[in-house]
């Protein structure tokens, strides 16, 4: 008798402790102080979390009827889309979701650059964020291979050859990636496992990103003055309502693209089954990889192209070192107004132009455009940022 009473009591204590953690977490989230002057650019993070949830849910359902085998993959996707209950809906959600995720991620990143969200004390938030970006890109690439259409196959082929260009270890890496001499069933197994496990690793990384952010507090468009404790508002209800509104507006755009303009997020050529004997005239990655595909091609050497293209992502890790002054630092008004604006415009324009060059196979005039745009892209990081850091007013430096 007394045993059971004791057990019951112990159970209660554990329950209370658990409830305590959940309640405390909920209270922490609800009361979390946020700068009141955040613009709608700060709701993109909430949109990303919503799309990530959608991707995991739809992806899990799709995985139930997918077969990672070179002879069966394409027809398993066809059967899924044509005959599985709501299969067409799940697949279009997942395809549209991939594009929206990358688009929102680029917006989120750009906002971070505009408002210097990478500056101390938020360097950790930025670092985890860039790691998330890299993981999303790997996941998106692996996912694009799975339907085993022409672009899936030849995309894997191009990526394999790019990896193979690494000196010394290249051929070994290529064989590890493809699981053979050419893309095939072993490649599909690798990509499926990678895609699947990466999805959950990503969820963990995003939790970490948010946790680190909560340790440091949110940045704000007005810099230090926005961080004044008197000007902070609790997350709930002020920012819950704002985030939900942001997510609903994104869902609206999502619905319009998915239902009325699906051609924007799908590649026609990928509805042809993979054919190792027929190289398509246009090997083109999904739109969100085009800038990196362009950079891969503007450099005359294979390995050089790989370095530049991978460097374009990895340079983001260096941003807090290249521009190390604190979030509170101010620059002369003409610098923050005009020079920073101009530099960011050049960055965005270069990114788009080198993407267009990638789309046009970097031939003819596009080769020049692609090269200039690549320079413009890196000029922001190695030219503008260090220069900008030196412009900070000494008295404002912490």
């Amino acid at each position, binding site marked *: 008798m007394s045993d059971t009473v004791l057990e019951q009591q112990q159970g209660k204590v554990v329950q209370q402790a658990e409830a305590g953690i959940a309640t405390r977490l909920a209270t922490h989230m609800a009361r979390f102080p946020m700068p009141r002057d955040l613009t709608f650019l700060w709701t993109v993070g909430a949109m990303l979390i919503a799309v990530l949830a959608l991707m995991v849910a739809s992806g899990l359902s799709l995985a139930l009827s997918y077969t990672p085998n070179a002879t069966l993959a394409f027809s398993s996707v066809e059967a899924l889309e044509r005959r599985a209950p709501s299969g*067409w809906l799940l697949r279009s959600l997942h395809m549209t979701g991939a594009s929206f995720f990358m688009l929102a991620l680029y917006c989120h990143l750009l906002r971070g650059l505009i408002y210097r969200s990478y500056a101390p004390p938020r360097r950790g938030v930025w670092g985890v964020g860039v790691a998330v970006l890299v993981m999303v890109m790997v996941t998106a690439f692996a996912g694009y291979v799975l339907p085993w259409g022409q672009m899936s196959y030849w995309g894997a082929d191009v990526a394999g050859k790019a990896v193979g260009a690494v000196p010394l270890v290249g051929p070994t890496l290529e064989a590890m990636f493809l699981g053979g001499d050419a893309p095939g069933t072993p490649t599909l197994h690798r990509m499926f496992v990678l895609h699947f496990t990466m999805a959950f690793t990503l969820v963990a990384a995003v939790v970490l990103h948010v946790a680190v952010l909560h340790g440091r507090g949110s940045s704000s468009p007005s810099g230090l003055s926005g961080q004044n404790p008197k000007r902070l508002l609790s997350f709930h209800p002020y920012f819950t309502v704002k985030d939900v509104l942001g997510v609903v507006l994104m*869902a*609206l755009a999502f619905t319009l693209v998915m239902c009325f303009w699906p051609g924007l997020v799908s590649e*026609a050529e990928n509805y042809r089954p993979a054919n190792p004997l027929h*190289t398509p005239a246009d090997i083109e990655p999904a739109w969100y990889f085009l800038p990196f595909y362009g950079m891969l091609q503007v450099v005359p050497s*294979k390995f050089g192209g790989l370095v530049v293209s991978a460097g374009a992502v990895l340079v983001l890790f260096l941003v807090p070192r290249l521009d190390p002054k604190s979030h509170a630092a101010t620059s002369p008004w003409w610098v923050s107004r005009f020079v920073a604006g101009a530099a960011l415009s050049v960055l965005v324009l270069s990114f788009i132009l080198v993407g267009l060059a990638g789309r046009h196979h970097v031939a003819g005039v596009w080769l020049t455009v692609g090269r200039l745009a690549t320079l413009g892209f890196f000029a922001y990081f190695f030219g503008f940022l260090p220069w900008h850091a030196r412009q900070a007013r000494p008295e404002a430096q912490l």
Partner: protein
Amino acid sequence: MIRRVKADLLTCLQGFRQTVFRSVGCGILACVPVQGMAHSLTPEKAPVQHWSFNGPLGHYDLAAVQRGYAVFAGVCAACHSLGAVHFSDLAAAGLSSEQVMALAATWKVPTGPGEPGQSTQRKGQPEDAFPAPYASPDAARAANNGAVPPDLSRVAIVYPGGPDRILALLTGYGAADPQDKPGIHANGFYNPYAIGHRTAMPPPLRDNAVVYADGTAATAAQEARDVTTFLAWVSSPHADSKRRLGVGVALYLCFLAILLVILKRRIWSHVAK
């Protein structure tokens, strides 16, 4: 779309310069027209058609889809497969399950390895896929002057130019070949919408090639429109459901967004900037 076909030819001409990582071995098909060709042999731009399924708010004319099925079954299926499609999929084009049963039974499908029966063929059942007309690509090539008739399951998506160009191709035969000099074109038929203005497909349609159940006059032009509509439907059979869903969801989200804007203004109303 036409851009891609042009790129086909360009890739062949410019060879290795274009793609850094692949020495582009251009497909044999894409290269055929290059030999001794002038630039005017790029496919002509197909006239723009007003399909009922065009645009974000379009929808399929299911009567035309059903007539188009008759043309496919009666004509195209002799050479082309529709491998990703099962007979039961046609229920979504407005057929009842009895009609699907009856329709499937008009096809002969090869028996699988474990199936009973002497013959290697049996009557089709709703869950069977459309059977391929040839046993192997080699058999297809042998029967079609060296060309393999492509599978048409997604043709309206993957064929550069889409439904407009399919219709133009099907009805584009008959004109005299402007550069018809013996010896230049080994085989094939003149058609300004084909790559290199030559196609291995013989003119497939003629008046009264099929009898329409709904009494529509089966002119060649009508057959071409109907079979194109059928192929467009088969290529994205769920486009209509998607658009219907989209209208409902978009309206709902607009309503929700308006409510949230009001709520947000109320909550933020007493916050000083």
